[in-house]
């Protein structure tokens, strides 16, 4: 059992090498037997990596402290769910998790398409296996999770050794979200490999048409959704565990996760240009390439220590491997593009600047500007040091200053873009579509001003948030009204029918609405308040409408940690509202102290209490209270984004085509085209974006 894991990993490496070799041979000789054999090797890699992951988990659950990785990241008192999550607590295990998730994606991509696209799949299989070779190289030869502990006996002979107990899991990771946050994020990072593989395969094989985009659309959305969830869970973890009252600090590792998400978002939008109009083919190919390369760059930043970060994986020599791989990927992508660039010629041209196409162009431009600004700020300290020889810092104020205007412009486009027609939009249509939402936004802004909302960015965000929400609602309303009039159904069921007929479009609107909620949540930041106070029993701390009375301090001991806990009673308007119990836990195995924040969350505001510990000066307990408005909207917005993405991935329900002529009076003047069968079909076709 002890060598099964490392043996499986080695076999997986050989399997991936074989998949590449046989795949290339099959493509060159056009022998189906070879390409099928390559595909089967690709499938086997998943099984072998799964065995390796199973072995490592088994070592964790059986407290096998002869394994160096288990001894470093677990201990006997660790709860079982954290033993499971300890798999990705360190460099070696997290790389293994990466490989496993990658092989899982590859397995399903190969399996689902095993009898389809015979010209494309061999290329895609080779690319997928090629990426796997890199990660399996790291797993086998650079950062093996199956290293065993050894020590020399008195006679100087090296012998295997074991520890009686492990060093324990990093206390920061002992939080429920840490059980799911890293796998979610990694599912995002690794998931972008599938569209990358199919894009490169289509380019290399000069696969005709937009088929590769149709094949990978859902894969891209799955990866994007996981990346979104991973980022939000990470933000929530930072908020709930680190005890600094915030959720995003523009740390390089946080930025690294944001970069591919931004380009992935741009791709999900621009891909529609290629599907609908056969445009932006070069752009889309490079967006997919860039997204994948940013995933690798993110891993490089996380693990190399190139930029200083509070995250744990920094400072290791593994970064050189990622630099090498990144260069190789770029060279392969560029060479493939250069050789086959004539294949990416656009079918159509832009007809008007006021059109859906141009809004997608702007959307992409703004998203890439945001991506560039984040990347620039993240890497500038390295660049500055190389040029001037001086170390400088690029902290959160820089990112806020640069990115907030970009993000607000993007929010504006979120409202404007979907309401513009393909090819050209008339001024009348603009007026009709935007007048009421715009008025709604301005009215909301005026009301906010009256109520003392003075922060300019927050105010703009609120106005745009209302504007976008109203444009989305109007889209649902107009579509549903047509169905309701035609079918005689009520408006609510017509909304359901409308959504299910074009899940991609209306799911997209739901995602946009989720993003509006997230923006509104972020707009609350300028109104944050905090008070820190030394508190004896019976003392009170006031913050906003709350008075917090300190009732008690007590100690709790468990096998894993000792805890010191404050008992606080929260009053509002003289009435007792709730009890809160912020804690500080001292983890015995790692000898590290962590805060357990107490949060009372409501849609309006979070009361966020940290027991900061005892004052170093006089030993008095110190309570730090924060009042953070609208934070809940961010998490709720995240849930809406996930639901919207899920909706957009569902297949469309077939609309029953109305082939009978319909009178002008019944349809009104907005839908005269449906008076004929072709008109009805054309109308449905128009809506299907």
């Amino acid at each position, binding site marked *: 059992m002890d060598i099964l894991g490392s043996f499986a990993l080695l076999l997986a490496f050989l399997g991936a090498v074989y998949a590449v070799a046989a795949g290339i041979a099959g493509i060159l000789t056009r022998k189906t037997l070879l390409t099928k054999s390559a595909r089967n090797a690709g499938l086997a890699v998943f099984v072998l990596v799964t065995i390796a992951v199973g072995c490592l988990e088994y070592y964790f659950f059986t407290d096998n402290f002869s394994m160096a990785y288990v001894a470093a990241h677990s201990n006997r008192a660790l709860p079982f769910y954290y033993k499971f999550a300890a798999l990705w607590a360190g460099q070696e295990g997290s790389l293994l998790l990466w490989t496993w998730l990658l092989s899982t994606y590859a397995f399903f991509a190969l399996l689902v398409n095993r009898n389809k696209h015979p010209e494309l799949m061999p290329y895609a299989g080779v690319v997928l296996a090629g990426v796997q070779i890199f990660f399996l190289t790291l797993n086998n030869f650079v950062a093996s999770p199956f290293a065993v502990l050894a020590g020399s006996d008195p006679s100087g002979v090296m012998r295997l050794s074991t520890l009686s107990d492990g060093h324990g899991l990093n206390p920061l990771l002992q939080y429920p979200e840490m059980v799911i946050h890293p796998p979610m994020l990694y599912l995002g990072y690794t998931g972008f490999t599938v569209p990358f593989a199919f894009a490169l395969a289509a380019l290399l094989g000069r696969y005709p048409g937009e088929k590769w985009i149709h094949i990978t659309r859902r894969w891209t959305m799955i990866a994007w959704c996981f990346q979104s969830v991973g980022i939000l869970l990470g933000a929530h973890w930072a908020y709930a565990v680190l005890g600094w009252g915030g959720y995003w600090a523009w740390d390089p590792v946080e930025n690294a996760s944001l970069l591919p998400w931004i380009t992935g978002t741009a791709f999900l939008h621009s891909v529609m240009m290629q599907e609908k109009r056969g445009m932006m083919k070069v752009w889309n190919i490079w967006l997919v390439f860039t997204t994948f390369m940013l995933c690798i760059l993110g891993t490089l930043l996380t693990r190399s220590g190139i930029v200083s970060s509070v995250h744990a994986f920094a400072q290791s020599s593994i970064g050189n491997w990622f630099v090498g791989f990144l260069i190789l990927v770029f060279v392969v992508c560029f060479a493939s593009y250069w050789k086959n660039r004539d294949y990416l010629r656009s079918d159509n*041209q832009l007809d008007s600047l006021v059109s859906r196409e141009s809004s997608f162009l702007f959307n992409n431009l703004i998203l890439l500007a945001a991506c560039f600004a984040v990347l620039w*700020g993240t890497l500038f300290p390295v660049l500055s040091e190389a040029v001037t020889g001086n170390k400088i*810092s690029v*902290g959160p104020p820089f990112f806020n200053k640069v990115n907030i205007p970009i993000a607000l412009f993007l929010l504006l486009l979120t409202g404007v873009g979907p309401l513009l027609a393909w090819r050209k939009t008339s001024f009348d249509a603009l007026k009709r579509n935007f007048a009421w939402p715009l008025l709604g936004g301005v009215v909301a802004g005026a009301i906010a001003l009256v109520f003392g909302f003075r922060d300019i960015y927050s105010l703009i965000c609120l106005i745009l948030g209302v504007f976008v929400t109203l444009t989305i609602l109007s889209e649902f309303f107009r579509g549903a009204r047509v169905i309701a009039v035609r079918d005689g159904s009520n408006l609510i069921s017509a909304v359901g029918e409308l959504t299910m007929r074009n899940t991609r479009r209306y799911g997209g609107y739901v995602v946009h609405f989720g993003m509006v909620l997230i923006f509104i949540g972020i707009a609350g930041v300028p109104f944050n308040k905090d008070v820190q106070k030394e508190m004896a029993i019976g003392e009170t701390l006031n913050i906003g409408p709350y008075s917090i009375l300190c009732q008690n301090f007590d100690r709790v001991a468990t096998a894993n940690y000792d805890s010191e806990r404050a008992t606080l009673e929260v009053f509002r308007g003289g009435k007792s509202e709730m009890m809160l119990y912020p804690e500080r836990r001292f983890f015995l195995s790692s000898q590290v102290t962590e805060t357990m924040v107490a949060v009372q969350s409501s849609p309006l505001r979070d009361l966020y209490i940290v027991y900061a510990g005892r004052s170093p000066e006089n030993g008095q307990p110190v309570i730090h209270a924060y009042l953070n408005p609208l934070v809940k909207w961010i998490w709720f917005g995240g849930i809406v984004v996930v639901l919207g993405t899920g909706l957009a991935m569902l297949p469309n329900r077939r609309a029953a*085509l109305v082939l009978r002529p319909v009178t002008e009076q019944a349809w009104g003047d907005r839908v005269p085209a449906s008076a004929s069968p*072709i008109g009805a079909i054309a109308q449905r076709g128009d809506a299907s974006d």
Partner: protein
Amino acid sequence: MIRCYASELRRSRARLPLLALSALAFLVQSSLLFVPPSQAQQTERGKELGRRVKCMCGGCEDSATGCNHTGGSFSGPCDTAKGMQKEINERVGRNESDDLTLQAFVQEYGPTVLIVPPAKGFNLAAWVTPVVAPILALVLVWFVVRRWRQKGTLATASGPEVPAEFLSRAKREAGREYDE
């Protein structure tokens, strides 16, 4: 009339303590308002300056004001951050300008102490590039779009009319492929 005057007098007498209290409250409030301006602004200005310098303890990436040591024995400002904040407050108390105060920290710790790069020399590029690059990209896109529009010519539809049945079948098949 006299009764009226008397009741008026009673009312004014009754108001006297109220007026006295109001005057006292005004005086107290005024005395609070008229504390030396440097003292009143010290905390806010000091805090604001503290947010512009980085805690140089080496164990965090926080500002001097926002220092919060996760994993430490105390989740609050460390000694380094406290020292830095104290120095800032003293300089603010002496009415030193923001630039002078920040410059003193740069001399002590180097430019890395500033939480954002100074907008001069090579570091100006940090601020200018994220603005200039999208503008250049916008200009580029503008030219590309113009070229597209110049090249784009609309072809007139020609050929036999497509029967409705055939068209609907084509749409169905396209839709099926699209859903895959």
